């Protein structure tokens, strides 16, 4: 029996070796049709192309047209939509606000992400339980996150103001003060995406060889020094990835912001996604909205470009 099987195997291998060009590592097994991989993968490829790639081309195309009046016939206007957008002070302000929003999310998110990940990394025994808790906000939708933050930041009965009152801080008007509304949006966004950052950084920390930090502490390095000089340089890939991921999420965050503040007060939190929503579904100028889509996609492409330049540098595929 064994003999027969191994002879069969050798035959299989010999066959595989005979066609190295088309099947370098054996390809499919004997008896599989050559068309099989195409048949198997085509539905997914078509689906992704139709639902991701095509709509974007459609958006670029559609942004070159405009209707003379609402609901009227559309005509080709070239880049006029983009010219209008970048001459619109409100739109430029929303780009600036998006920058503030994304920066705020990055500063608070990465700060907390690093601190929490370092704390989790040492707590080996309780790690599973704590990791389970950490992920919970990831399961909450953006709109539900906004509802939650409307409650805890409520000026009258919100627990945050009640807590701050213990330190003599007056009731903060989170949703009528423009700066505070922006901070509220940033906090809600950070809450919602922090699990990604913490888990990524934690994953990196767990690959740091404990011998390295042990050796450093024998040489007299304190906890902070070990973190700064050894752990953080070693997990730079994860830190940059978490940074890019957080900015990507913040740049395209609509549900959190719009359900939390509705873009207000007086446009103080009208970020690019909110501007897009209003243009498309309130002002009903969908061709102009498509131009905003293209602008957002371009910003996003810059982030992605950074991501790929970076992942190539650090050979992340092997991580």
């Amino acid at each position, binding site marked *: 029996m064994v003999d027969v099987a191994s002879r069969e195997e050798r035959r299989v291998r010999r066959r595989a070796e005979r066609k190295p060009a088309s099947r370098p590592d054996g390809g499919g097994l004997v008896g599989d049709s050559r068309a099989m991989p195409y048949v*198997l993968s085509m539905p997914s490829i078509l689906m992704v192309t139709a*639902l991701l790639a095509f709509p974007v081309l459609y958006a670029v195309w559609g942004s070159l047209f405009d209707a003379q009046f609402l609901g009227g016939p559309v005509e080709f206007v070239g880049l006029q939509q983009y010219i209008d957008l970048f001459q619109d002070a409100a739109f430029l302000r929303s780009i600036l606000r998006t920058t503030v929003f994304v920066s705020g999310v990055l500063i608070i998110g990465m700060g907390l992400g690093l601190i929490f990940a370092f704390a989790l990394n040492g707590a080996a025994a309780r790690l599973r339980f704590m990791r389970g808790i950490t992920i919970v906000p990831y399961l909450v939708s953006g709109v539900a996150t906004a509802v939650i933050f409307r409650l805890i930041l409520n000026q009258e009965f919100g627990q945050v103001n009640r807590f701050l009152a213990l330190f003599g801080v007056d009731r903060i008007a989170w949703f009528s003060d423009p700066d505070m509304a922006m901070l509220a949006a940033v906090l809600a966004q950070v809450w919602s995406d922090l699990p990604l950052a913490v888990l990524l950084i934690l994953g990196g920390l767990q690959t740091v060889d404990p011998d390295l930090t042990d050796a450093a502490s024998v040489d007299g390095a304190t906890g902070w020094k070990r973190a700064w000089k050894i752990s953080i340089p070693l997990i730079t890939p994860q830190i940059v990835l978490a940074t890019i991921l957080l900015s990507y999420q913040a740049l395209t965050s609509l549900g959190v912001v719009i359900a939390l503040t509705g873009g207000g007060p007086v446009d103080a939190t009208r970020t690019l996604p909110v501007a897009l929503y209003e243009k498309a579904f309130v002002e009903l100028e969908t061709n102009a909205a498509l131009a905003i889509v293209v602008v957002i996609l371009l910003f996003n492409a810059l982030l992605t470009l950074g991501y790929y330049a970076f992942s190539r540098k650090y050979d992340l595929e092997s991580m």
Partner: protein
Amino acid sequence: MTSIAAEPSSRDETVRARINAMKLWARRSIRWIVLLILAVWTTFPILMTLSVSLKTRAAVGTDPGLIPSNPTLEAYAGVIAQQGFKGAFLNSVLVGLGTSLLTLVLAVPAAYAFARYRFRGRHLLLLFTLLPRLIPGLGLMVPLYRLAVALGAIDKLLTLIVAFTGTVLPLAVWLLVGFFQQIPRDLEEAANVDGANLFSRVRYIVLPLAVPAMIAIGVLAFREAWNEFNLVLGLTSAPGSRTLPYELFLMTQTTGFQNSPGQAAFAIMTIIPFIFVYLRIERFVVGGITSGAVK
């Protein structure tokens, strides 16, 4: 920043040992304080929401403590009786299950092809990693809305399922490829020798081994469908065709800061079922999320 070895007054060994012990103790307590903050940061907002949801509208202002003095399920009854809630809940469940199923049906064969065969077009796998990063759901909201209007596909659950599957599929295929590659070829070759064809190989060898990965992908797809807001905003308008996040958004718009217990109860009902599902299968999901995030 003073290093232990350079301490000038630590000639005495016992003193040095005591200092070390104190530093260790300090470090440990800092760690536990940070972990405590993490636990509060994560759970407190949800607990506060739960607390508000168990109060009456009047009690929200007068009884601001975390533990309600007169807990009541009034707000829940109100939301369930509210027009649109039950329908949205059912829609969310159907769309979630449909998305999970369609994602798996499409992703398993594609991932098998990418993992096992060297064929022209294999480089298209890169498409699956690149496109979702280049094209966030927000970017699809308006184009898909226009396309759905043109195709008469607006307000249909199937449209939502197809659109969500499109956005989840790349990650699903990518995760499954990695998983299938870990299944030893030898197993399949041995079965092949025994005369098993492709379908019985996949059915009896690959799929049983891939169950954990498939559960993780099913849950990730369900989460995506359950929580997605942008595409629902674009692809539905009629009442009765919306899913929970959209319905909750509308409730915040119509009731403002008036009906806090109702909004809290609504939010809790969208969160809690899913947290229970998740806690049972946490170990599959966390791996899926982080590897997806890295790649």
